[in-house]
C-alpha cells in the first residue's frame, strides 16, 4: 500500500507544493507539477543533516527544525530559511495569519526600545519604520508589516523587550 501526503514549502517567499508518497518500495516525491522521483536520502551527522543522493550526485543538507514548521538549512555554506508544513497544518496556520492580518509587530530579538516613531491613530504603510530597538549596542529599525492605522503601542521607550513581545499593533487599512 502506498500513501501520499501533501506538504507546502515556503522558500525565499516562494510557495511550493510537494507530494510525498510512502509505502512499499522507496519513498517518492513530486515537486509542484514535476514528475515523481524516488528518494535516496538519509539522516546523518547524528540527526543534524540529510545526505541526499540523486544519481551519483551527493548533497549534504544541514537542517535544523524550529517551531511552526520553520527550518534553517545550510547548503554549500549558503543558509536558507524555509517553512514546511503538511497541508492541514498549512491551512491552520493560514487561518491564524488571516485572523491576525500581520498587524502585530513583535520583537524578534531581546533588546531595549530606543525610539517609538509613530503614535496611536497614525496611518502607516507597509515597511515604514515605526520603532527602534537596540540590541548589542546596535540599533534596529523595525518597519510596519502591513498598511494600516496604529491601534496600540504596548511598550514605551527605554523598556526591555523579549522576542515575541508585541511592540506596535496596526489595524489593517480598509480595502
Amino acid at each position: 500500500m502506498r500513501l501520499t501526503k501533501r506538504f507546502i514549502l515556503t522558500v525565499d517567499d516562494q510557495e511550493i507544493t510537494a507530494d510525498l508518497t510512502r509505502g512499499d518500495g522507496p519513498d517518492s516525491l513530486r515537486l509542484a507539477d514535476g514528475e515523481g522521483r524516488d528518494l535516496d536520502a538519509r539522516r546523518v551527522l547524528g540527526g543534524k543533516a540529510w545526505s541526499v543522493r540523486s544519481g551519483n550526485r551527493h548533497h549534504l543538507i544541514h537542517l535544523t527544525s524550529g517551531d511552526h514548521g520553520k527550518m534553517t538549512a545550510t547548503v554549500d555554506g549558503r543558509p536558507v530559511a524555509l517553512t514546511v508544513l503538511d497541508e492541514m497544518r498549512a491551512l491552520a496556520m493560514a487561518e491564524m495569519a488571516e485572523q491576525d492580518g500581520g498587524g502585530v509587530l513583535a520583537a524578534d530579538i531581546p533588546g531595549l526600545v530606543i525610539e517609538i516613531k509613530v503614535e496611536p491613530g497614525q496611518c502607516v504603510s507597509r515597511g515604514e519604520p515605526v520603532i527602534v530597538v537596540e540590541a548589542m549596542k546596535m540599533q534596529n529599525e523595525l518597519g510596519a508589516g502591513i498598511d494600516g492605522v496604529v491601534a496600540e503601542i504596548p511598550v514605551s521607550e527605554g523598556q526591555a523587550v523579549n522576542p515575541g513581545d508585541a511592540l506596535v499593533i496596526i489595524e489593517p487599512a480598509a480595502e
Partner: protein
Amino acid sequence: MTATGKTITKVLVANRGEIAVRIIQGLKEMGIGTVAVYSDVDREALHVLCADEAVPIGPAPASESYLVGEKIIAAARKTGAQAIHPGYGFLSENGAFSEAVEAAGLVFIGPTAESMAVMGDKLSARRKMRASGVPVVPGTDEAVTDPERAIAIAEEIGYPVLLKASAGGGGKGMRIVHEGTEMAAALRETMGEAGASFGNDAIFVEKYITDPKHIEVQVLGDGQGRAIHLFERECSVQRRHQKVIEESPSPSLTPELRAEICAAAVRTAEAISYRGAGTVEFILAPDGSFYFLEMNTRLQVEHPVTEMVVGVDLVRAMVEIARGGGIIYRQEDLAQRGWALEFRLYAEDPSRNFAPSIGRIEALHIAGGPGVRLDTGVYEGFEVPIHYDPMLAKLIVWGETRDLALARARRVLRESVLHGVAHNLPFHLWAIAQPAFIDGSYTTAFVGEHFDAADWLPELSGRAREALLEAAVLEAASGDRNDAPAAAAAPRAGNWHLNALRAMTRNT
C-alpha cells in the same frame, strides 16, 4: 620599574568569549593555573567551562561585571592568582586598572599605564612618533582653536582635511573639511562634540587620506627600550569601522615597504619603552606612503594570523615578558611562512546592515583538516547573550600562498554551518569571491563599494535546491521538533500513515 623573575603559577583572565578561551588554553600549555570570571549570564559560557577555577563578578551588564576593576582584583586575591591577563576590550587599555592591579601586588600582563596614556592621547602620540622619526599623517601636533590657523594649516597640507579629537576613537569626534568656508563651523562642532563625549576638546588637523589600506604591525617590547616586530597584518575589510577579515602577510607590501613599515613599528614601541605585545597601526595611502595611525596596547583580535605565519605563541610571549623573562624570540629567527586569513564569525545579519542577532546556537560545525584553526567562545546549545560583542568565534586558515589560503578558506566556509542566529559566514564567502579581494587591491572602502545587502547571496544550483526541498519534506514528515531525536532512528510510520490517510480523505 622592571619585573624580574616574578612567580606566576596562576593567572586570572579578565575577559570572556573566544579570547578568554584562547588565553586559558595558552596558560594551560604553560602549566599555569587558570581562573575565569563571569557575569550572571555567563555561568555556562565556554571560558568558564575551560578554566580550573571560576569566580562570579556580578550582573550581566559589563559595567557591573567585566568592567569593574575592583571585583576582578578581589577575584584574583580570593583565588591566589598572581597575575591578570586582560585580553582585549573591557579593561585591557585602562591605565587606572593596570595601576590598581600593580598596586594590589599583582602582575598586569600588558604594558604600563604610562604607555597606555601616551597612546590614548592622539596628539601626544603624534608628537612622540614624529620625534622618533615615525611618519605621521601631515597636520598639526598641537591643539587648534582658531579657525584661521586651521585654514592656514589646511592650505599648507591640502584639502580635504580631517578635524580630529585628540581623545577620540571608534570613529567619533571626527569631521572631514573640504574647503575653507566649512572650517569655522566644523571646528566649533567638533570641539563641542569632543568636549561632551571625551571631556577633552583638544582638536587637531590632519590630511584626509582617501581609501587607504589598513596595515598594522605586531610588536613585542621588553619594557626596557628594546622591541622586535612579528611582521604585518592587513585589515582593510571593515564594516561599521570594524575589521571582519584580516590577513598576513599584506598583499600590498613590497619587501622594501615591509621592511620600512616594520622598522617604523619597532621605533614606535622602543620610543615608549613598550612592554608586552602591542600593535602599531598604519594607514597606507594609494601612493605607497604610510602614516602612523595609533598603537593598540594589548593583544589584538587578529593575533592568530601572525601566530600561524610566523610560528609563534603571542600569549606565551606576553606571559614570559610579564614574568620578567624578556622577549622569547629573536628578530633574526623570525620569518613569514605561507599566508593566513582570519574570518571573524559575528552573530549578525549582513542583509540587514549587519544588525546583531542573538539566540541559541542550534548547530555549529566548522570544517577541519589541514591549515585550519578555530578559536571559539561558543558551542552548540549555548545561548548568545545580548550584553556583549556579537563576535562568536574566529576561523583562521593557512595556506602556502595567498591563492592556496583562499582556496582552503572557500572549502572550509562552504562546509561550515551555524544555525540559531543570523551570522556572517556567507558574507565571508561573498568577500573572498570579489575581484578586488582576490587581487588584493581592496581598501577600507571595500564593503561600502562592493556589498549590496539586497543582492549578494548566491543562487543555489537547481540540483542543490531540489535536494534541499527533499530533505526538508522528509524532515517535516519525520515529526515535529519535539520528537525529532526519536525520529532520527526511524520515521514514525504509524503516526504518519494516520496523517496521510486523513490528508487523503480531505483531498477527496
